[in-house]
């Protein structure tokens, strides 16, 4: 497995000349999980998409993004396309909108696997089926033959995870994968992310503003605000001794919410998930 090193990443809007991400640098060690937290508009998603080189053409991007020593920003579009999916997997926020609404989800899965592997249709179905069962999707064949609107957001999120399981990428980039889900599905999906990493040994970049989820999954945390990384470090350290005022604000807001919750529930201490 390879590390991912982002150096001096800058993203600006050509039209307005505004800087959206200023000089970000960070390293994702092989097999580790880095969480990016921060409010909406802080540049988390832009950073994710910049890694896959999927930001719209109107955004100017500079800096280097090295995957196992290869600078992705120097690759041709054709070479980049081979890396997307196979070595860098993106998991998007809203499962309900991630799949072509007029085809059954199996079409996307097969087209993707067809791009990267020379497998027969039967082999693709078998491998996909196995991966889907491991993320607790019952009856994979029926799921593959369903249209996106016939499945729930949580199921579609887990289909993306199952696809990542089959693709076995170096790095999974998850852009707020739990935000659009209800609490129960959120819990299931987070557990599947944890076991995805354990199973294929990939690294992970996990964007979220749910600190509970981040605490469960991340080894390292980057706190972003207004396009800047204001604080970074190991998860435990960020939670126990936050240095930046904004990080303290995030954590205290979370704790205040917990206290309120405990108070309403009439208990003293509810273990922080």
């Amino acid at each position, binding site marked *: 497995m390879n590390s991912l090193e982002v150096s001096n990443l800058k993203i600006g809007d050509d039209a307005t000349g505004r800087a959206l991400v200023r000089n970000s640098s960070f390293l994702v060690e092989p097999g580790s999980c880095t969480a990016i937290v921060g409010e909406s508009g802080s540049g988390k998603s832009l950073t994710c*998409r910049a890694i*896959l080189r*999927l930001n719209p053409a109107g955004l100017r991007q500079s800096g280097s993004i090295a995957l196992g020593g290869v600078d992705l920003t120097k690759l041709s579009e054709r070479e980049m*396309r*081979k*890396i*997307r*999916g*196979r070595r*860098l*997997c*993106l998991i*998007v*926020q*809203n499962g309900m*909108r*991630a*799949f*072509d*609404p*007029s*085809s059954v989800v199996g079409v*996307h899965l097969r*087209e*993707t696997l067809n*791009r*990267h592997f020379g497998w027969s249709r039967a082999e693709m179905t078998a491998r996909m089926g196995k991966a889907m069962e491991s993320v607790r999707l019952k009856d994979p064949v029926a799921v593959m033959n369903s*249209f996106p*609107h016939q499945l729930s957001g949580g199921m579609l999120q887990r289909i*993306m995870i199952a*696809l990542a399981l089959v693709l076995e990428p170096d790095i999974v980039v998850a852009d707020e994968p739990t935000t659009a889900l209800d609490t129960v599905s959120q819990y299931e999906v987070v557990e599947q992310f944890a076991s995805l990493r354990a199973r294929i040994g990939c690294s992970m970049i996990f964007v979220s503003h749910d600190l509970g989820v981040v605490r469960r999954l991340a080894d390292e945390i980057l706190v972003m605000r207004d396009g800047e990384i204001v604080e970074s470090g190991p998860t435990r350290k960020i939670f126990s001794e936050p240095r930046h005022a904004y990080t303290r604000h995030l954590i205290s807001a979370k704790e205040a919410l917990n206290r309120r919750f405990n108070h309403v529930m009439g208990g003293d201490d509810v273990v922080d998930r």
Partner: protein
Amino acid sequence: MGAYIVRRALIAIPLLAMISFAAFVFQHLSPLDPAEVVLHSQGVPKITDELIAETRAELGMDRPFLIRYLDWLVSCLQLDFGKSYVANQPVWSLLGPALLNTLKLTLVSVAAILALSVALGVACALKAGRWLDKSIRGLSFVLTSAPSYWLAALMVWYFSVKLDLLPTSGMDSARSYVLPVAVIAIGYAGIYFRVIRSSMLGNLNEDYVLYGRACGLPESTLVRRVLKNSLQVAISIFGMAIPTILGSTVVVENLFAWPGLGTLSVRSVLSRDFPVIQAYVLVLAAAFVLFNAVSDIASAAVNPKLRNDL
């Protein structure tokens, strides 16, 4: 899907019944007495009250209204629309061939409109904001705002008179289709390609395109997906374009002396040939209902979400 088709077809029946009733009622609201029209067109020199009463009985006008309607409806279903007052031959023998000619013109035009709109819509969406997009939209604006008779006159002057490439009128060979089809297609394609363009642009911003790209799929696959989803909007519009063109070929048909519904309807209105007008209205209305149903079914075939409606 099969169940959807049956349900959709059943809805069309009461609609058709209402339309036929309206067509029948409207004719009877006319102040003109059909008997008089018949006698006039037969060139009877002196029309007496007796003669009118006799002709009314001959036409079956003396029976109760509802009976006449039902009688008329049953014969209509057998394509028997009565006799033309003027030409003194069955309406269907006039209407049938005219309908066929107009249908040919319409279908060729719709095929041209579809091809033009999809090609231009896709090209403009993929190059949105660039000079290709801007120039196509600018040109289409000029062409669609030009009145069709003016456009037709210009094209006849240039292609038929000056270059002597195409016939000016009639329906003799495949070449006769070129000018009328071009005039119709330019007007409609200029509007429809914008629908496809904006629908494609909306779809290109959808998450499924981003996720598809992130999975390493090539642009051609993604454009195919986007086009398929964009056509859903277009299908219902194209479905309604067929009957709309059927009913609006009047100008083009009269300009190019096309022996179709447009020419026939104008002639019948001017000579107050009621049975022909009535049948014309009925056939066009039925075409609207029919193509509406067909486009709904086609939409449901592309967009599975719609199948649960109704």
